[in-house]
């Protein structure tokens, strides 16, 4: 009973974290149709930057701003500088994001070294809450709340604000939007920035759970990939759904079938891609 309950809670909190991790990834795909395979490397840099700020100042807010801000700005620069040349050519875009991720991950290794780094949650989020049979870390509860807040915030931004209307129009028909007088390039800067910011902050949030070490970037990327592919590339509600599916199955698999862990995560994704390539909630592939 208590194993079941703790598996469910673990699964939900993991799902929340997955959703936060996948946010920036799904945003870039949703708006720009860019499959950003450098997402994990951006996360890694966010994590290292945040860890450095925290160990230097102990200020978590500053850590969020530095991790999100630096990674966001770097993403804008990289995006505008590199991707303008290959825009519209999917395969070359993908290759470029892979190349960038190799560079970033190796640069992180050079700068921060190969030792695993642990990051603590801020003071007020440490400790555990009691749910009769199980005690559950407060930080993980916080993640669930944050995921709900971020999910709602993104939904509001996209569906209810004027920037959101611009973004939706851009997805509908980019060339048309530009020929109406909208500076689509500037809009893209915003998207690059937002995607990078979310990836960087996810680095902080995730490193408190997973820690930081070389190679984390690939794992994070794969998790994000599975989540958004399951849900439907570029769809916010799909990412939420995908996170739940992966979070819960991961949590149960680690307890009940550790040898099959990867089959349980990647298997459903493969099957889904075959029978429904657009994902659970995607409109089109």
């Amino acid at each position: 009973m208590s194993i079941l309950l703790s598996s469910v809670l673990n699964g939900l909190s993991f799902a929340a974290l997955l959703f936060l991790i996948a946010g920036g990834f799904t945003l870039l795909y949703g708006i720009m149709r860019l499959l950003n395979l450098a997402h994990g490397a951006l996360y890694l840099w966010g994590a290292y930057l945040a860890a450095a700020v925290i160990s230097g100042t102990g200020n978590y807010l500053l850590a969020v701003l530095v991790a999100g801000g630096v990674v966001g700005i770097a993403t804008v620069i990289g995006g505008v500088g590199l991707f303008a040349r290959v825009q519209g050519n999917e395969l070359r875009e993908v290759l470029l994001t892979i190349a960038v991720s190799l560079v970033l991950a190796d640069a992180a290794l050079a700068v921060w070294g190969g030792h695993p780094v642990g990051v603590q949650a801020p003071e007020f989020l440490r400790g555990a809450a009691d749910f009769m049979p199980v005690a559950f870390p407060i930080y993980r509860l916080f993640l669930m709340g944050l995921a709900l807040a971020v999910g709602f915030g993104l939904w509001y931004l996209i569906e209810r604000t004027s920037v959101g209307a611009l973004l939706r129009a851009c997805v509908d028909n980019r060339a048309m939007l530009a020929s109406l007088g909208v500076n689509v390039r500037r809009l893209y800067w915003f998207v690059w920035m937002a995607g990078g910011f979310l990836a960087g902050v996810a680095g902080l949030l995730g490193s408190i759970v997973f820690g930081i070490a070389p190679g984390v970037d690939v794992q994070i990327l794969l998790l994000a990939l599975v989540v958004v592919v399951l849900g439907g590339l570029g769809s916010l509600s799909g990412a939420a759904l995908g996170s739940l599916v992966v979070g819960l199955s991961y949590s149960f698999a680690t307890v009940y079938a550790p040898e099959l862990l990867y089959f349980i995560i990647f298997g459903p994704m493969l099957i889904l891609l075959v029978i429904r390539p657009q994902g659970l909630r995607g409109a089109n592939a």
Partner: protein
Amino acid sequence: MRLSVTSLAAQYGQGAALHDVSLEVAEGEVIGLIGRNGMGKTSTLRAVMRWPEPTVTAGRITVDGTDLTRGAAHRPARIGLGYVPQGRMIFGSLTVEENLSVLTRAFGRATVRAGLTRVWDLFPKLADIRNRRASVLSGGEQQMLAIGRALVGQPRILLLDEPSEGLAPSIVDELTGAIRNLANDGVGILLAEQNLTLAVSLTDRLLVLEQGRVVLARDSSGVDINDPTLRSHLGV
């Protein structure tokens, strides 16, 4: 304001679509660009609006001496060209009003507010359905929205690509009236059309496009719809 296109050539990838297109539109003028399917009407308008395709390989596009042949895709609209594309291309996931207000950041709040009033005046039908999702509109309503959307930025010259395509005659009449009103207000109009009768009735001057070249230019007032040369070019 005057739009001048001089010896324009353009291509999709390696396939040439325009070879030699020259035309002029000034404020208050209505110019018709006619030709059969695939002769380059849409390509001409797209080149002027700096769409990603076709790419211009030769010739010049200027507005009052300002060169528009190169540069960012949003410049033509900012300079005062409005574009109503073939197939309407309204933003289906936005509401009717959002389709118009989405231009706030491009043109400023005041301009857009004035633009909204103008659109609701011109097409009262649209005002009634302003909160409806654009994807569920009828063809005629979509066309009105596309025209309205092009007017939000207060263009001095409007490029219209086959606005009558696929619409019922009564709606075409309504649109024709609206276009005539715009022309009377002094907006210059470049109208790409296959429907010769409509083009003759609306325009001051007709240009015939064939295989990416302007092959014939006539004043509309003197044009006889049964003129054999004209009809042979249009293949009717």
